[in-house]
């Protein structure tokens, strides 16, 4: 197991370096001079230009610049936003809880709804419920989620007036946010109605972001369940006279869950990409909206830093999932 962990860690390093190279090249690949972009439309004097070039290190050889960038990154220095003048690192981590909260809710939504439905469908293979669920899953899988979000807004916010259209909480509530998770902070603030306001703000974004993971879980777990249900040990369990709910819900599902770990791994990218769209539509103050806004504002240090941190996030989750795999399935360790 230790060898496996070490080997896997070793592949992390070149990928990390590559990712830093990509984010480093990003600013240099842009058309136009970053300092002129920063100066805006007013232009800039030559002395000031030289001063800024020296400050950002653009006057030094490219390899030196990269080395400075890499050491900076390793110390948590990702530069400063052109627009807010705050360090990119701080901005990322002050917004990250919002994205994390939304992603966790979306994943919980997908798993809590998906797994029970799939178990029922797989046990009743080919019957009406199974076919209806699989058709629904395919529709969900094919859904342009930005359109889905607009439809939900039309129905639930527009016609029924059940849910708010944007933001994380009603404007009348104000309280400190030590954790950054609105659900926890609103509960801790003790203000009347704050928690329910936070929940109502979360409902539509959660459904939108959870739709594709839900569809993927339904499709993947069903085939895994069907495979497991045909195994000998399930027949043995049946022959022993165990209750069907116990067999299906525990014996079969537990083994069918292994591919679900993969789905969760793959979902991290899906969630982050989905967060870009979901957060933009619902004005959810998280990483996705931050990145899109920064691209439009030409706030390149933010785009650069955000790109790197998102990629590292994906890599770390993949690393953890691979370790979990090694733990669950000893065969993988040997490879």
């Amino acid at each position: 197991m230790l060898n496996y962990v070490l080997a896997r860690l070793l592949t992390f390093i070149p990928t990390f370096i590559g990712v830093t190279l990509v984010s480093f090249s990003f600013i240099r690949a842009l058309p136009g001079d970053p300092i002129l972009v920063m100066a805006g439309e007013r232009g800039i004097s030559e002395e000031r230009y030289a001063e800024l070039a020296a400050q950002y290190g653009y006057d030094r050889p490219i390899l030196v610049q990269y080395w400075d960038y890499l050491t900076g990154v390793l110390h948590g220095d990702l530069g400063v936003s052109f627009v807010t003048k705050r360090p990119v690192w701080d901005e990322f981590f002050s917004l990250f809880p919002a994205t994390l909260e939304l992603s966790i809710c979306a994943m919980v939504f997908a798993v809590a709804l998906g797994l029970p439905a799939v178990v029922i469908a797989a046990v009743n293979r080919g019957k009406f419920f199974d076919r209806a669920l699989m058709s629904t899953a395919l529709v969900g899988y094919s859904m342009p989620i930005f359109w889905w979000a607009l439809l939900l807004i039309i129905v639930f916010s527009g016609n029924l007036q059940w849910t708010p259209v944007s933001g994380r909480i009603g404007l009348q509530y104000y309280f400190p946010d030590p954790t950054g998770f609105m659900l926890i902070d609103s509960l801790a603030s003790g203000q009347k109605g704050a928690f329910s306001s936070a929940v109502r703000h979360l409902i539509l974004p959660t459904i939108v972001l959870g739709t594709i993971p839900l569809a993927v879980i339904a499709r993947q777990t069903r085939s895994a369940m069907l495979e497991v249900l045909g195994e000998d040990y399930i027949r043995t369990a049946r022959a022993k006279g165990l209750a069907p709910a116990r067999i299906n819900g525990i014996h079969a599902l537990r083994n069918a869950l292994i591919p679900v770990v993969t789905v969760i791994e793959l979902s991290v990218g899906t969630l982050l990409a989905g967060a870009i769209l979901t957060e933009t539509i619902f004005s959810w103050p998280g990483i996705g909206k931050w990145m899109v806004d920064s691209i439009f504002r030409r706030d390149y240090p933010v785009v650069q830093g955000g790109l790197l941190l998102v990629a590292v996030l994906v890599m770390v989750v993949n690393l953890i999932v691979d370790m979990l795999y090694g733990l669950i399935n000893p065969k993988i360790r040997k490879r």
Partner: protein
Amino acid sequence: MADTTQISSAPTRPSALREFWYYFRENRGAVIGLYVFSALVLIAVFAGLIAPHDPTAQNRAATLLPPAWQEGGNWSYILGTDPLGRDLLSRLLYGSQLTFLVGIMVVLLASAGGIIIGLISGFAPKWVDTIIMRTMDIILSFPALLLALVLVAILGPSLINAMIAIAIAYQPHFVRLTRAAVLAERSKDYVISARVAGAGLPRLMFITVLPNCIAPIIVQAALSFSNAILDVAALGFLGMGAQPPTPEWGTMLAESREFILRAWWVVTFPGLAILITVLAINLMGDGLRDALDPKLKRS
């Protein structure tokens, strides 16, 4: 020698196709998907003939007209008009051309690049293989939509740049699939015998091995086709894809966002068009997977 191979391969070819069709037909959803897809292709090809109006012609007297069957609707604008008084149906019909163009171009770019790099990776010495695979890992560390957004920020927003960006983001999947298939095939007897018979590396790569790796690539191509449509529409929706007044479905959604509570049709129909197209392709993709995957066939 050449004659015998021709004789032996002649009868197997049509039967392989017939076998494929036999399994594909088993899947009712896939056949429905194929019909819908064919209909959409016909619509895209003949959009210029079917469309009742010019997709960019504005009629200031008829802005935000509801669909014909609703009160205030007009039968010359069957699905209603958008905020600038353009015919929604005509825009959707012309938009289908862009959608297919996007799907085909992304799949061609991503698969052609991916197959060649994958073949090289599978046949090249280990250090080249390692470099290629690590590079692919790096690309895969970025969520496709985010990578595409950033690439478009560099290249400038346009439909072509959106396609290129998404093709780059999808390429690693083709590389991995091709490489895995090549590694599985490379040590088989027929490849060794071809090599012993004196086949050069290019012939070995493209003529001997590639045809036997093609099944998973086709399935991946179908998947990429539908994902590309979704992602390009998403880029258009974010304002980073096709630019107005192009009748691209995602861009149409973005233009009509502020009217969602007043005019449901400007939002509903473009999205529905995306959903139906993607759904049809995914249904076909499922059929392709079942028909081409020998493991699932017998179960």
